[in-house]
C-alpha cells in the first residue's frame, strides 16, 4: 500500500508544483473538453489545430515586445486568434470561399508571420517556449488565468447551450427560427481561442489542442448523448492530466510532463477506439443479435 501511495498521491502531497500542475490541467479539461466536443460534433475538429497555429504569431509578438510576460503573450494570442477567426468568417460569408479554406489560408499566413517574427529576434529558442509551455511552472497568475477562462467558458456554454446544440445537429433549422446563428458561431470560435490561449501557457500551443480534441474524440466511443459526452470528455481530460503527471514523475528524466499528459489522452483515445461501447472496434468484430444496436 505505501508503494501505491508513493506513486499515486505522494508526489502531489509533497510538491506544490505537482498540485499546481494538476489544478491547471483540471481547469483546462473542464473548459477545453466541452469546447472540443462541440468542435467534434460540428465536424470542426481540425479547426482547433488551425486556431492554435494562428495564435502563435500573437504570442510571439507579445514575447518580442515584453519578454516572458503573461499579459503580453495572452493579449497577443487573443488578438491574433480573434483576427484570424473573424477574417475567416467574413471571407466565408462574403465570398465564394468556404470557411475551412479561408481559415486554412489565414492560419498559414499567421503561422508564417509568427515564425518570421521570431527569427527577426535572431534566435529560434524563443519559439520553443511558445510551442511547448511548461506545465510544471504554473505560477499564481497563470492559474488565475486558467481558472478564469474555465469559468467564463462554462458560463458562456451554459448561456449558449441550446443554439450551439441546434447548430450542431441542424444549422438550417436554427437559421429558419432565429438570426442568432452567426453570432453564436463567432462566440463559439471566441471560446476556442481563449481556451487555446490559456492552454498554451500550460502546455504550449500545439499540445493545448490535444487536451481539447483527444478527450472529446475518446468520449464519442462511449456515448452519443451530448450531456454525457461533455461530462465524459472533461473526465477523460482530467484523467489524462493526472495519469500524465504521475507518469512523468515516475518515469524519471525521460518523460517531460506536457507530452506525457497528451500521450495519456492519446492512450485513452486508443483504448476507447478498441473497447468503446459505441462503435468501438471490439464491438464491431464481435457477433451480435440481428437487427439490434
Amino acid at each position: 500500500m505505501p508503494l501505491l501511495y508513493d506513486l499515486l498521491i505522494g508526489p502531489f502531497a509533497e510538491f506544490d508544483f505537482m498540485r499546481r500542475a494538476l489544478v491547471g490541467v483540471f481547469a483546462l479539461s473542464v473548459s477545453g473538453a466541452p469546447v472540443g466536443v462541440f468542435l467534434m460534433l460540428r465536424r470542426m475538429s481540425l479547426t482547433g489545430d488551425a486556431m492554435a497555429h494562428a495564435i502563435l504569431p500573437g504570442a510571439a509578438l507579445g514575447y518580442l515586445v515584453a519578454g516572458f510576460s503573461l499579459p503580453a503573450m495572452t493579449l497577443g494570442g487573443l488578438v491574433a486568434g480573434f483576427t484570424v477567426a473573424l477574417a475567416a468568417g467574413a471571407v466565408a460569408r462574403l465570398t465564394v470561399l468556404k470557411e475551412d479554406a479561408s481559415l486554412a489560408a489565414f492560419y498559414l499566413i499567421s503561422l508564417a508571420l509568427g515564425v518570421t517574427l521570431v527569427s527577426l529576434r535572431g534566435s529560434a529558442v524563443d519559439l520553443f517556449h511558445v510551442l511547448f509551455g511548461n506545465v510544471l511552472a504554473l505560477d499564481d497568475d497563470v492559474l488565475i488565468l486558467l481558472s478564469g477562462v474555465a469559468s467564463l467558458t462554462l458560463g458562456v456554454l451554459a448561456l449558449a447551450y441550446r443554439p450551439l446544440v441546434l447548430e450542431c445537429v441542424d444549422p438550417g433549422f436554427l437559421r429558419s427560427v432565429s438570426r442568432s446563428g452567426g453570432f453564436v458561431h463567432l462566440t463559439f470560435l471566441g471560446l476556442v481561442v481563449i481556451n487555446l490561449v490559456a492552454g498554451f501557457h500550460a502546455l504550449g500551443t500545439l499540445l493545448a489542442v490535444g487536451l481539447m480534441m483527444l478527450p472529446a474524440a475518446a468520449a464519442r466511443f462511449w456515448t452519443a448523448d451530448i450531456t454525457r459526452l461533455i461530462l465524459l470528455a472533461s473526465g477523460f481530460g482530467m484523467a489524462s492530466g493526472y495519469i500524465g503527471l504521475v507518469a512523468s514523475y515516475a518515469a524519471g528524466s525521460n518523460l517531460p510532463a506536457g507530452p506525457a499528459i497528451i500521450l495519456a489522452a492519446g492512450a485513452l483515445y486508443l483504448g476507447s477506439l478498441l473497447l468503446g461501447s459505441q462503435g468501438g472496434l471490439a464491438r464491431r468484430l464481435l457477433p451480435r443479435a440481428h437487427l439490434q444496436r
Partner: protein
Amino acid sequence: MLNRRSVLLSLAAGAALPLPVFAQEKLPVVASFSVLGDFVREIGGERVSVTTLVGPDGDAHVYSPTPADAKTVAGAKLVVVNGLKFEGWLSRLVKSSGTKAMVATATTGITPLKLADDHGHGHGGEDPHAWQSVANAKIYVGNVRDALVAADPAGKAVYEANAAAYQTKLDALEAEIKATVARIPVDRRKAITSHDAFGYFVKAYGIAFIAPQGVSTEAEASAKDVARIIRQIKAEKVPAVFLENITNPRLAEQIARESGAKIGGRLYSDALSAESGPAGTYIAMMKHNISQIEKALVAGPA
C-alpha cells in the same frame, strides 16, 4: 602549442589558401556564437571583421541558420567554431554554403568533461561549454590566434601581440575569480541553475551547480527532475537559485518559491549579453557571473 598540428592539417586539407587580395582589406571571420566572436575580436583587432552567427542572448544549441548566415559563411576566410558538438547545425551550413573558408575548432586541445547524466540526447556525452573555465579560455585564445595566423600570415606579429596581452588579462581574471570563491564559506558554495552549462566552472572553481534540466536546452524537464531538485535544495540547504538568460524563468521561480532558496541574479552561460549589457564581453561575463554568485551565496538563507 598542442593545436599547431591540427591547424596545419586543416591548412593542408584546404590546399592553396587564398590570401586577402589587398593587405588593407579586413579578414572576414565568422564565429559561431558570441563568446567566440569576442575572442576573435580581441585577438584580430583592426585586421579582422567578425560576424557572429548566434548573437547576444541567442541559444546556439537550437539555432536555425538563415540564408543570410549561409552568405556570410560563404564569404568568410575563416570560420571559428566551438566544437564538442555545441553547434551541430554549423557543419551542414558550412557544407551547403560552399565556402572555401578554413574551419578552426576552438576547443582543440581541451580535455572535455564527460556529462555525468547522459539522457541520450544533446551533445553525445561531452560537455561543450568549455569556456566557462578561464584556463580553457586561454586554450581557446591560443587556437584562435593560430587560426588567424594561418589564415592571414601577414598579421602574425599583431595577432601574437594581441593574444599575449589578452592572455595576461585572462590570468588576472582567473586570479580574481579564485579570490572571490575563497571569500565564500565552503558549505555555501552550491547553487541551482536552470541550465547545466557550468560543468567546467564547477570543476575549476569548486562551486556546485545543480540543474533542473539536462545539459541541452532542447530537453524539457520531467516532473521527476523538478522534484529531485526541490528535495535536494531542502536536504542540502542550498542557499540560492539562479535564473539563466535563455531558459524558462517561470520554472526557476517555481523551484525557488517551493524550496525557500533565494533567487540570484542572472547568470550568463551560453551567450554574452548585448554590448551595453552586464556581460558584453567574455571577461565582463565571467566577472558578472562570479559577483552575482558571491552576492547570492553569501546573502541567502542558511
